[in-house]
């Protein structure tokens, strides 16, 4: 499923996202990689952007980017 479709508070593991595009290279450099566990913390009051937690820190990204990040909901949430 898409990261943008994740329920608030749910944890998932990143599967894949586009190779190119400045946004995606930067997301990788910020530590969002295939296999990285992420948690959707919340959406901003107006629904966009989203706040996620990964590698122990909080990051925002817009839904337009999150739509391209495919994740898999992990049955055993690593938090």
């Amino acid at each position, binding site marked *: 499923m898409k990261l943008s479709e994740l329920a608030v508070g749910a944890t998932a593991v990143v599967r894949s996202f586009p*190779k*190119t595009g*400045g*946004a995606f*290279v*930067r*997301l*990788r*450099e*910020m*530590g969002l*990689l*295939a296999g990285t566990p992420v948690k959707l*913390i*919340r959406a*901003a*009051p*107006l*629904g*966009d*952007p989203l*706040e996620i937690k990964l*590698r*122990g*820190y*909080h*990051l*925002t*990204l*817009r839904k*337009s*980017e999150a739509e391209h990040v495919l994740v898999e909901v992990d049955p055993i949430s690593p*938090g």
Partner: protein
Amino acid sequence: MTPAAPHVIRSHARPGPGSARSPVYALVGNPNCGKSTLFNALTGLKQKVGNYPGVTVEKKVGTTYSQHGQPMVVIDLPGAYSLAARSPDEAVTRDVLLGRRVDTAQPDRILCIVDATNLERNLYLVHQILDLGRPVILVLNMMDLAAEAGINVRVARLEHELGIPVIACEAVNGKGIIDLKLAMSRADLPLSRHAWDIPAPIAPAVADLQASLIAHDGKSPLIARAEALLLLTDQDTVRVAGSTPLHARTHEALRGWQQRWEAEGMDWAGTLVNSRYEAIGLIAAEVTVRAGETGPTLSDKIDAIATHRISGWLILAAVMTLLFLSIFTLAELPMNFIDGRVAALSDWVKAMLPDGDLRDLITDGAIAGVGGVIIFLPQILILFFFIGLLESTGYMARAAFIMDRLMSRVGLNGKSFIPLLSSYACAIPGIMATRTIEDQKDRLVTILVAPLMSCSARLPVYLLMIAALVPGDRVPLFTKVGIMLLMYALGTCGAFGFAWLFKRTLLKGAPPLMIMELPPYRLPAVRDVFFHMLERAWLFIRRAGTIILGISIILWFLSAYPKAPPGATPQQQMAQSLAGRAGHVLEPVIKPLGFDWQIGIGLISSFAAREVFVSTMGVVFNAENSDENTAPLRQALLAAKWPDGRALFTPLVCFTLMIFYVFAMQCISTVAVVRRETNSWKWPLFQIAYMTGTAWIVSLLVYQAGRALGY
């Protein structure tokens, strides 16, 4: 002193023992890791702030002293998440570290500061820096916060893994600074032993680019390798002035590899980033011990309220209200004080010097002009203080997070919100705060529209016009407030409208990203915030000072020459001066707006600063002790007539004049700051043209429509 691992290779990094020159350190780290706090702790007030030539990125250089009292230079490089730069700030950091900049020599040694609570992501930048082959000292900051979060970082283990000195530190309270200075004082520093295997499919490309960089760009082997890796990570898209360009052959080699990989469907950048994170993951697992999963932190709890659907808005509104209340209340006393001092200085000069042009030049030109700007300094200082406080506590990022959706409607992102909001008090701190916006086009759009937000210098004009507009002393308060709100709303709509327009036409660009870290809330480092405030204010005075002084003198000259015959009143002098004549010349242009040549003089003179309009009107209409609240000026305005006997300041004219001031760019300080921040005269001139053009057109429409409706 922290000992290095025993089996470390000793490098005799320049300058070694006996070298005459003291070593130059670069201080590097992610944003929000406490880098400026460390820089302040190391260098104290021994700092120099300037710009990298050609770019609007701040260059901060300070001096600290070694164990033996030798000075050591520290360059505080802009915060960066990666050397594969995505913003001008990061590009400068990259270029300095790679020795690409013509104005800044490559630093001898590097201080890498990392946030111990967030080791993995922070180590990514460190990992890239270790490639550079320079001696590195790693500073593990925020050890106290890490301990609180249940993270134990084994310093000795990390030192062993990387083979470089690692200093545990709490920069906020100065812990670890002495250890750090001792490490910095060492004549020899080890080079990292950390070996990192470049992924096999990419290795030939790295070797190829490295060879080209050595052969054609004259790089040393290690730097060439590091640069090759960066070129393959993010294609070197962000380039800034003052950086030496790459040779065409190197570009060709890069394009060749990219095309080949694209055809094969290979994700080369991803592979590189992955392999770095893999290496980092191994180190992090080795050196960090987590005390199990802790519950929500205090920061999480605050955020649940501060970014909540409903309370988030309330808190944002409360913070902003507090900000404006304090600007207007706290600034009042010092503003009155400055006003008094400037007047006293002017009187003193008048008493000391004989009557004449020189005296008038000094008092009415230089002192009045500069005084008119300095009077806003308290507001500017308070605003800088608040912006610093919002940044230091982490709330700034939350405000951007909340406002992003609204800002995206006009094509900007949440980071433009605080600069625009600050511009309600004064556009200068607002424009200087746009440096946090990474995208150059978005930053420029924000700078261009910021002066449309009604600043406090417009207040005196609004107040005077409202007083003239609604005659009688028993004016219902809500009418005044209503008109005032209308002006603020008009300016705000104008700012957003033009932002939308510019993003679609002049400064077309991709919709800005909102990939932003939300750092944990922290107690503000008040000392740093204070430093930051003084530094900003000083920059403003230094950068804008000469331009403001120059234009003030020109405007004085315009109103003082040619001289009226002796014994003429100030009113007569004004009427026959160049400014008065310019008013006459201007009259045909402004007559369709309902303005005569006398108002024209006010428009010209208030080009320096909007509030000058009030005092000019006082001179032109010969009202003593003029000030926006005094009855004499209001009476004088109401008595003013056109030559044919019609009243000049009809309610419609007053209203139109206010609208003119909403849009017109009447502030030399802003012009000077925009000139500095955009590094060219093109943008401030464009800004004057579009704003004044809009002011004229909107005023024309309002006046003519009003006339047609019978007002």
